[in-house]
């Protein structure tokens, strides 16, 4: 074969893999902070829709609303609400961390800030759980 007849194949293009967002092979806490922020964000969007549908019972009068509330008043839903509070608090506090970083404040301390966010979220969730159960 001569060079005129030979052609090296094109390189294999990288695939866009969404699984990478959620893969546990993170390199630093910043990667985890981002993953948690994204996960809690998605969870909160779904909760928002759920919240809207629960509140729609308000439009059907007091009885319907009361029935809906009673349906939700069991340990499973209370546990889910605790998880929801964890998500909300983390998303909010980490959002503040991201805002500070964008103002070039504490970028070098971003890991420490994550742990502060994490511990505060855990404590708040704990307090809420004790209060709610």
């Amino acid at each position, binding site marked *: *074969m*001569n*060079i005129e*007849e*030979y052609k*090296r*194949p094109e390189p294999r293009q990288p695939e866009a893999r969404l699984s990478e967002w959620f893969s546990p092979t993170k390199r630093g806490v910043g990667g985890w902070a981002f993953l948690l922020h994204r996960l809690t964000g998605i969870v909160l969007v779904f909760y928002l829709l759920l919240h809207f549908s629960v509140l729609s019972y308000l439009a059907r009068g007091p009885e319907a609303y009361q029935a809906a509330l009673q349906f939700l008043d069991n340990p499973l839903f209370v546990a889910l609400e605790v998880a929801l509070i964890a998500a909300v608090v983390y998303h909010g506090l980490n959002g503040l961390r991201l805002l500070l970083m964008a103002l070039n404040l504490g970028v070098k301390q971003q890991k420490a800030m994550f742990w502060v966010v994490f511990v505060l979220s855990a404590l708040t969730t704990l307090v809420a759980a004790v209060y709610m159960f």
Partner: protein
Amino acid sequence: MKKPHVVVIGGGATGAALAHDLTLRGLRVTVVERGEVTSGTTGRHHGLLHSGARYAVKDQESAKECIEENMILRKIAPGSFELNNGLFVAITDEDMAYRPAFLEGLETCGIPYKEITPQEALAREPNLNPAVKAAVEVPDGTMDAMRLPLRFLATAQQHGAVVLTYTEVEEILMQGKAVVGVRVRDHVTEKTYNIGADLVVNAGGAWSGKIAALAGVHVPLQPSPGVLVAVYGRWNNMVLNRMHRSGDGDIIVPQRTLSVIGTSSWVVEDPDKLEMKKEHIQLMYDYGAQLVPAIRNAKLRAAWAAARPLIGSEGGAQTGRELSRTFKCFDHAERDGVEGFVTIAGGKATTARGMAEVTANVVVQKLGLDAPCRTREVVLLPHTAYYRRRM
């Protein structure tokens, strides 16, 4: 008539500069390199743009080549060098005894220099050994020895050269006693194919002896490795040299955020089998600390063995220190009766352009062309152009 086609074996500094020179002279050029470009001899560089001062006493031929090329490269490749100058410092009385010969050598070789007081040297390089007795400033510099060849290649590509990486020469194709091309293996697919050529140039650096053997000819090449040690921290801003006869560990080149101490020297037969001499790492630290005492505690980033492609003496070299750093172009037609095959060997990264000029002169003369060298003036494209998409 179709333009003559030259195959250059080796994608290091020499092959890159040669491809650039030949394309400027209107030839078609294909560079074949068995690995990534600049992964062989060039890839183990010290990163020193020589002023020639290091060779000013013992190897004046090489020293003159260095200062001439140094000045040309500054013009054609701005941005590839840190123009920090170099400082030769005398620490001991023995170094001081070398000083007159050193200054005389600089004069003889036409290397511009300026003697500065030890106080001034210390003011400019606070980490320098305070025992400094004399200091001479010369136009050394730090070079990006990977990106400079990329700039040669990018400019050559712009003028039509083809660069084939991961393409290893398996056979040099002959018709009778004439070289007519190469048979290569593409390591991306492991397929082999032939590349026809009007002329083949062997620019294999430390490997050029092995490549010449494929054509049945002998090149007196002596791969001479040395250990280099890169440490974290930029301990000096100028290139620091010991003012004495070239010895071990007497240069510290600041490179980016690192400092590179070099080097030791011995000789081997096969450049693929350089065993790294572990004990030389400590040696480099010890010698480096004579120039910059604080470097003793610098954190090690990397240590590696680099093979200089020196032209051997027929008697066989002991350490490589006694061999000249100059280069030589072998036309195997007059030497070995093999037509269409040229080897360029020896030299240093600093003199790559000059080596290419001499070789290209031989190539065009052999091909019966009249095309002058233009690489002294043409300013090179940036290294990023090497990665530009080409259709």
